[in-house]
């Protein structure tokens, strides 16, 4: 299999965003994943979100680990630099990239094997550090490329395609992200574009560690009866807590909502997050309550989706390290090298 490019013929009437770009300008190579794979829907949602936000494609750096999900950055944003790193280690590579240039948008794409098994350590620590990024896990509960072994997010008691029952407890990355200090935490379903696109937009405009767990059924190995990550199961047990709209600074607010129904929060970058509550008892600004809520619904077999927690004024690693506002990769000798006079002085003090 080699690299496939898409024909660049555009329909003249394709809608354009404020940069004059069509959705096609945000696409990548043709996907080599299985037909109907949930991951391709997530790629489409990423394209849609970036297009709607009118992000300059080349100002995004897309990073991934290894696995089916980690292949997807090839399938969107082909004007962006991409980095398909090593298994489970995307978070550290992304952290380093972010430290080098704080001005780009960092999009990390990973899978459940990549993030919850081999890479759980790096997943945890990138959240703790509050790296400014959007971290998407395309979660299918299974190892696709190696043909169907359980991953660590598979629920206990769920059934593999060949009939094996998973006896190990499943890891909920949403709960971990909440506990470890991510400042924007959401869960969605690859089959629900209406919900997913705004969640990605919110994450991309969030200036801290944003995490989205996207349940993404594996059509080849985890879409059968007895799986808790199949299309049917997720559709039946999906419990959305809210509905989201993200309005950038440049865009006029047109939609009207009844007062009281909608919560508006201005983010640090000026964009506004509009949250329409579906579940009355749920409060997305309360981290502890979110953790409790997710767990209590899980106990009765429901998968809670939506924006589960966010703070409009997040901390980020550059803030913690107190780095200069200029990207570090743009500093030269003048800013970095103390020069000969300083060295002579130092020599003097070492005699």
């Amino acid at each position: 299999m080699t690299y496939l490019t898409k024909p660049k013929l555009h329909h003249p009437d394709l809608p354009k965003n404020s940069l004059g770009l069509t959705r096609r300008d945000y696409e990548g190579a043709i996907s080599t994943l299985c037909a109907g794979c949930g991951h391709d829907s997530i790629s489409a949602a990423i394209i849609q979100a970036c297009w709607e936000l009118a992000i300059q494609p080349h100002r995004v750096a897309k990073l991934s680990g290894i696995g089916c999900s980690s292949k997807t950055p090839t399938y969107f944003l082909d004007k962006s630099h991409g980095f398909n790193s090593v298994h489970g280690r995307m978070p550290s590579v992304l952290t380093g990239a972010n430290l080098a240039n704080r001005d780009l948008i960092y999009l990390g794409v990973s899978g459940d094997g990549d993030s919850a098994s081999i890479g759980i350590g790096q997943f945890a620590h990138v959240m703790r550090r509050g790296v400014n990024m959007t971290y998407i896990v395309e979660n299918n509960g299974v190892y696709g490329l190696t043909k169907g072994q359980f991953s660590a997010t598979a629920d206990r008691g769920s059934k593999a395609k060949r009939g094996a029952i998973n006896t190990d407890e499943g890891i909920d990355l949403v709960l971990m992200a909440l506990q470890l200090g991510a400042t924007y935490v959401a869960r969605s379903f690859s089959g629900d574009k209406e919900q997913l696109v705004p969640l990605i937009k919110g994450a991309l405009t969030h200036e801290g560690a944003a995490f989205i767990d996207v349940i993404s059924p594996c059509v080849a190995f985890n879409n059968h009866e007895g799986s808790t990550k199949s299309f049917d199961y997720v559709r039946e047990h999906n419990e959305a807590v809210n509905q989201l709209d993200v309005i950038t600074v440049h865009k006029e607010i047109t939609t009207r909502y009844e007062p009281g129904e909608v919560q508006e929060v201005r983010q640090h970058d000026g964009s506004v997050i509009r949250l329409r509550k579906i579940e009355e008892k749920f409060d997305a600004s309360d981290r502890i309550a979110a953790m409790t809520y997710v767990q209590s619904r899980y106990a009765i077999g429901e998968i809670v989706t939506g924006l589960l927690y966010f703070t409009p004024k997040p901390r980020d690693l550059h803030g913690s390290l107190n780095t200069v506002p200029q990207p570090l990769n743009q500093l030269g000798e003048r800013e970095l090298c103390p020069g000969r006079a300083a060295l002579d002085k130092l020599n003097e003090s070492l005699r």
Partner: protein
Amino acid sequence: MKLEAVNDFVVKFANVNGSGSASANTLFARAILRMGVPVSPRNIFPSNIQGLPTWYEVRVSERGWLGRRGGVDLMVAMNPQTWDKDLAEIEPGGYLFYDSTKPLPKSKFRDDVNVVGMPLTEICNAAYADPRQRQLFKNIVYVGALAALLDIDPAELEKLIGEQYKGKEKLFEPNVKALRMGRDYALANLPKPGLQVRRSNLVGDRIFLEGNSAAALGCVYGGATVAAWYPITPSSSMAEAFAKHCRKYRTDPDSGKGRYAIVQAEDELASIGIVIGAAWNGARAFTCTSGPGISLMQEFIGLAYFAEIPAVIFDVQRAGPSTGMPTRTQQSDVLSCAFASHGDTKHVLLFPEDPREGFEMAAMAFDLADRLQTPVFVLLDLDIGMNERLCQPLKWDDSRRYDRGKVLNYNDLEAGKRFGRYLDLDADGITYRTYPGTHPKRGAFFTRGTSRDRYARYTEEGSAYVDNMERLLKKFETAKEFVPQPVHRRAGKGSRFGVIYYGSTSPAIDEALASLEGEALYVDAMRVRAFPFPDEVTDFVAHHDHVFVVEQNRDAQLRTLLVAEAMLPSEKLTPVLHYDGTPITARFIHSQIAQRLKAFNVSPLKRTAATGE
């Protein structure tokens, strides 16, 4: 018998870890330096915070030999736990200085060793009420006493204390008082040993600093902005020194913000991942670690090699394998660094000989990594890294510019310069890269550890894979021009015998060659400073009948590399190996080489007029 020596002896302090002896002992060494007499101190310490034995060995050498000599002329035995071993180490006719507060049976001494007893505990208990003060000042008291016995100028000691406690006058007075207390007692009560320090002017403008600190400073001068690390002996002090230097030299004076980012990562895997991510994105980045960290980083190092991302890795080597002897020195990571990772890989290695070269090679490593777009290893070791060493002053040329290598910027791309990430346009194996975010339409590519074609497109075509692997070899060949060239030294007469060595072995070799020459045994020497080996290394071996390869590891790792990579005949290369965790000595090298030269039937050449004898 009493040993007699002026400016040429070894003092060893046997202490208990955590007792505050380190700063007192350093004071002792620095005072001798200030008198213009070269010293070479070494910390010999356990993997422990408090309670286990620790030693500080100071070699005083008018001739300027900075290697470890071996043997002890004056033992300062402050640790009852190690008494027997310490006593045994003293040369016949040497001296034992000890705390005589508690009487010891005669069986605890040696007839051929001169004993100098001083009731240190008694003196301190009388002078101080606080137990912590009694302990801390005891160290200063013995320094005061030793200084008096060895004729170390008390003014130099007091000046050093003044510099140390500048702005903390409250601490200055009691320290000077303790120093004088020791001195007064010694002058009134103790016999003078035959060892003496005499003022000289042999230190010149040389400086005294630790290799880890020097290498960290080299990173500051070399423009590193991102550092990621995981604590491990003996490299932690390098990361800490980088933080200290950055606070001093890299803080924006107006905003107080830093022109650097340091992350103490969760492990070595994350450390190298952060370095690779930062370097991919155009920042100069490094990590510092030791052997176990290199083992953990293997997969990522292969990625950096294959995806061609600059990365600078400092390996402050210690004794392996596994946890080995974590606080002892070795040169045993040469092969694991040279061929780090699975598949066919080779990496650039630099071998600094001392802190000064640690500084230079650190700064140079960033230029090399950017120029060659590959990982560059700087192989320090514990002996260089964690000891203060007398070396030439650090130098920097203000006209020097960073070599950022082949990077296309916005204007290049806008002007339509040809770009293929793995396209060898200059026939040197080095291709052009772009940083993320450079141009809206041109220059983006996908970085991956999987095989790809010249335009960075994923492929499993055998021919494209081979094409790429061959280009990487070509690039490694190109590296030979850029790495530091070896240092070649001909013996007085020229010789059919040669010796190859590297890194911290230098001072011991200098001394050994001089002593061999003193016996009219002449050996030419080559100090290898980098891998890949420049052609001069091959020529050196070709021009000698026989070459000794001196290393501080069991398996003759550099020799393996010489045979495998420079295609040198193994029968010409005789390993001389020292690997017990202590720094190699001139005595060891001398005896090994002299013995083997005899086996080759070499009789000492007649002394010539040139040597003046």
